[in-house]
């Protein structure tokens, strides 16, 4: 238990240094979201139309941006050897690391989403669904991401390879997440999509750590 908390806290600390302000991550999201209106043009109806998609794509890229730093530093400075040699199962280490990654990249978006939604003036009715979908979906991003990060460890061109592996796997949450928000923006029920999102995360929860751990052991062998 101490061990788990240890990894979690350290990784969190290392990601957003010494637990310092997650404000940076937030700022990143705000910027990312502000970028779209620039690219897409300020027409309100278009924006509102694509609001959900924008927020979700932002979440994807935020997760992606930080994935290659998930294991790489530990791998290069030999820390990963020690994690793998720690008494507690590597799966748990991975889980803790993924959790830290989520808290660093996913959670801020969940918290900020109501504000961000204003930027891209999303239909107010859809607000709760938006938060719910992000809350359910973003952990999946971190979990699956950790698998890809572990797989591409020590590969050539890690960065691009990583995106290539991750993005297809990120499609389902994107579809259902955005779908849910749109549904409730159109006044329909978002329940099925949200359920599927939850199911995805639940499925990834045991599978991803297992796969990542397997991949990491390969990387160290």
């Amino acid at each position, binding site marked *: 238990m101490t061990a788990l908390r240890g990894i979690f806290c350290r990784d969190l600390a290392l990601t957003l240094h010494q637990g310092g302000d997650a404000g940076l991550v937030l700022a990143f999201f705000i910027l990312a979201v502000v970028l779209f209106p620039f690219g897409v043009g300020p027409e309100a109806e278009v924006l509102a139309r694509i609001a959900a998609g924008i927020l979700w794509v932002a979440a994807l890229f935020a997760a992606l941006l930080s994935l290659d730093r998930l294991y790489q530093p530990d791998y290069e400075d030999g820390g990963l050897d020690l994690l793998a040699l720690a008494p507690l199962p590597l799966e748990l280490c991975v889980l803790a690391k993924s959790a830290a990654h989520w808290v660093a990249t996913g959670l801020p978006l969940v918290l900020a989403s109501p504000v961000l939604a204003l930027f891209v003036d999303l239909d107010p009715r859809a607000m709760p669904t938006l938060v719910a979908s992000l809350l359910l979906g973003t952990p999946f991003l971190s979990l699956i991401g950790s698998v890809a990060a572990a*797989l*591409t460890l*020590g590969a050539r061109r890690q960065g691009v*390879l990583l995106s*290539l592996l991750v993005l297809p*796997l990120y499609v*389902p949450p994107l579809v259902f997440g955005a779908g849910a928000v749109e549904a409730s923006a159109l006044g329909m029920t978002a329940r099925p999509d949200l359920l599927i999102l939850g199911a995805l995360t639940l*499925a990834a929860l045991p599978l991803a750590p297992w796969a990542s751990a397997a*991949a990491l052991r390969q990387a160290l062998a």
Partner: protein
Amino acid sequence: MIERFANPARFMRLSATILPWCGWATLGLLAVGLYLALVASPPDYQQGEAVRIMYVHVPAAWLALSVYLLMAVASGTALVARHPLADIAAQSAAPIGAAFTFICLVSGSLWGRPMWGTWWVWDARLTSVLVLFFLYLGYIALVNGFDDPARGAKAGSVLALVGVVNLPIIKFSVDWWNTLHQPASVLRLGAPTIALSMLVPLLVMAAAFWLLFATLLMIRMRTALNERKALALRLNRAPRARPGRTAPVAAGPEASPAVRPALR
């Protein structure tokens, strides 16, 4: 240990004998299938001649899915049973599967033009197949992404297993979402809802595609085996960084003539 080492050799012998038969059978079935599909079978009462695309599209689609499944199974056995052939099988299957997926995509969008009036729609079935295509590419990229082939193989296996999640999504996308794409009419619970005059050529083409796959797979596996052998031999001649400590390697009896020049 021993039998594990022996297996690749046995495979080489077996495949050498089977391969020619497979090849000819493929050609034969393809010829028959194409004749039935393009000439013998009737045009569809509403789709007209365009329906003939089906005879390429559907088998390709089936192969796209089943090859990935096969790849995943092979990868699983490679991870668990450590069987050397499993890795090679999975890696050799990947590009073929990617090709079939590509055919499925292209033929599909060719078909979509007359049927739906557009080359492409962001419909669940279509996009999930596109994702499958990228999964194939990702797998190939990953396997070749390492300096150490063994490492690439292991990483690839794990990815292949993770990617299986996509298969049910593809298969049932037509039922879960209301897609433009039509639901299964052959591979479905209950009797096929398709005219026999179309079913027969379809099945013949499917069989032909399967044989084609088997042939290509064997060819690729054989070449892959030879390459592995060459690499292992080359590396084992490289001694440690110290003068006069060369570790000579007696090129094994298995070293195929094709490889020997590379070793000199």
